[in-house]
């Protein structure tokens, strides 16, 4: 049992809706807060029961209640950060907000953010990118770093012959990255001598390849879900793709046709949906689940926070059970938080991607306490050796040393779960397949698996659509979470599996 100590942090506990719990609305939360109130200020920590792993008896964690506002109101607690995810899954229905300290608003001095450097061309290199038969591939993004730390180099897209000429300031590239939108794996290499021509062959995607998702989840062998369960995808739109059936949805982008909820061409939403529910050449983790597509990204532009709020509102009206939000940014948005809360109050769980800012703090709205925040992990040998994915391997490694938390994944105490998010093969518009990396991919892996697990408990799904339903869903899912050995800051409680 871990006691609050050096790695402890203060958090404020609040009921979901108001500053004080309502006995009628949620008696369990009101009773729990009253219990904490009784031990406020006591030096001995309170021992609370949690279930850390399936098939094991309940254990206890220590929580110190520092301060309280009213018996059934807000509580200031101290808890070991490693235990926060366990606490969240065992005692859902509470907003858990880190205690903040405010400073006087004194204007900070301006600092120079970036030294401007002129790149003087030393070499001109022609990059030829082909398929295994030697045929040039158009539209491959080539990024060549001569100084990776400084972000210095050149980049561009290959032409119809698969060729891109770049002027560079050194005759050695520290790193070369090549990205294909679809059909091929990307390419990565360090310390490349830049001659007049550099030739690279890209590996085509085989839908039968065992990527990280299928390593952990043997989806081709899993039966399709037969119970009705509905997953809302708030993204760039979904499909068309032969492996995907879209039950319904809406385009929420202001000024666009609300009935056009197919993918806007970017492919992100179709990839996300395929991870959840593809069924054909590829199999998602929740094949058979109903997919609702809520398009919020206009083509080539950012999604408005207002359109995301509308999408959540629509997903609530459409009676989704789980919502996937593979999006985020550094700043909090009160409107989106409010609608995630509305969804929770309607018995719906929102899974949100942690963000891909190279181990930065968890993005919003993933960091909002009623979201289920998902980080990205990967596994060595589940992608080709010279692929972009090889560049994402970084510590910490898991209990199995082949498992790692992706270098790009945001991390922090708000993390609830981790999921496979490195080298994930999924659907791309117009019956193509693509490999993508990101917490955007880990998030639907977790959301989809949650849908599969919840579909096995119709009694739970038939509960009235209110906060208690969401609380019970969270508690039920906790039984299926296993720690991968990365530590709570990286994986929260761990990863979902389809068996307890």
């Amino acid at each position, binding site marked *: 049992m871990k006691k609050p100590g050096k790695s402890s942090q203060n958090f404020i506990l609040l009921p979901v809706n108001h500053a004080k719990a309502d006995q009628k609305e949620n008696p369990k939360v009101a009773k729990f807060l009253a219990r904490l109130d009784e031990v406020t200020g006591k030096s001995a920590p309170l021992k609370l029961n949690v279930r850390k792993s399936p098939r094991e008896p309940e254990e206890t964690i220590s929580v110190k209640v520092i301060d309280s506002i009213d018996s059934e109101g807000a509580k200031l607690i101290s808890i070991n950060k490693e235990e926060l995810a366990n606490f969240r899954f065992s005692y859902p229905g509470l907003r858990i907000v880190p205690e903040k300290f405010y400073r006087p608003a004194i204007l900070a001095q301006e600092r120079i953010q970036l030294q401007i450097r002129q790149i003087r061309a030393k070499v001109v290199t022609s990059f030829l990118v082909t398929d295994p038969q030697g045929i040039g591939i158009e539209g491959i993004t080539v990024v060549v770093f001569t100084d990776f730390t400084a972000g210095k180099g050149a980049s561009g897209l290959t032409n119809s012959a698969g060729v891109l000429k770049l002027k560079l300031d050194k005759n050695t590239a520290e790193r070369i990255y090549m990205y294909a939108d679809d059909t091929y794996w990307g390419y990565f290499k360090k310390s490349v001598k830049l001659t007049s021509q550099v030739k690279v062959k890209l590996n085509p995607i085989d839908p039968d390849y065992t990527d990280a998702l299928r390593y952990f989840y043997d989806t081709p062998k899993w039966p399709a879900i037969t119970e009705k369960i509905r997953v809302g995808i708030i993204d760039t739109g979904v499909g068309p793709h032969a492996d995907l059936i879209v039950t319904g949805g809406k385009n929420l982008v202001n000024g666009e046709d609300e009935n056009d909820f197919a993918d806007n061409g970017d492919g992100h939403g179709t990839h996300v949906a395929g991870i959840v529910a593809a069924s054909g050449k590829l199999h998602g983790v929740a094949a058979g689940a109903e997919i609702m597509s809520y398009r919020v990204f206009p083509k080539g532009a950012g999604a*408005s926070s207002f359109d995301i709020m509308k999408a959540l509102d629509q997903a609530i009206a459409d009676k989704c059970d789980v919502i996937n939000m593979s999006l985020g940014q550094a700043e909090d948005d009160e409107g989106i938080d409010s609608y995630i809360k509305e969804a929770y109050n309607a018995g719906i769980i929102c899974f949100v991607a942690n963000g891909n800012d190279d181990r930065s703090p968890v993005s919003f709205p993933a960091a909002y306490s009623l979201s289920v925040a998902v980080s990205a992990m990967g596994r060595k040998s589940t992608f080709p050796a010279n692929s972009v994915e090889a560049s994402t391997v970084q510590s910490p490694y898991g209990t199995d040393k082949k498992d790692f938390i992706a270098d790009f994944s945001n991390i922090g105490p708000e993390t609830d779960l981790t999921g496979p998010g490195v080298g994930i093969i999924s659907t791309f518009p117009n019956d193509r397949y693509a490999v993508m990396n990101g917490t955007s991919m880990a998030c639907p892996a977790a959301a989809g698996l949650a849908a599969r697990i919840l579909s096995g408990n119709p009694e739970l799904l038939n509960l009235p659509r209110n906060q208690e339903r969401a609380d019970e869903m969270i508690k039920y899912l906790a039984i299926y979470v296993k720690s991968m050995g990365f530590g709570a800051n990286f994986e929260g409680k761990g990863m979902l599996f389809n068996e307890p």
Partner: protein
Amino acid sequence: MKFILKYTGTGNPDLKKITEVLSLYDIQIVDDSLLPKWALIRGDELQVSKLKKALDSEWLLTPEMTFKVPDTKKRIRKS
């Protein structure tokens, strides 16, 4: 610039009154689909700052935020 207007009061707001205030400052309602609680509005920055001062305390104004499609591609830093 676009802003999100939020009603924080209890019960339903006086929509006629708020519409009059908005038109007084030449502010357009871009999206009213989440009314009476929320609306997306657009106006000149100076006019919006004037509107902020004129609004009753039960109305809040926050800038609209935009979210990019997430990816993990490495990019050359622009100098």
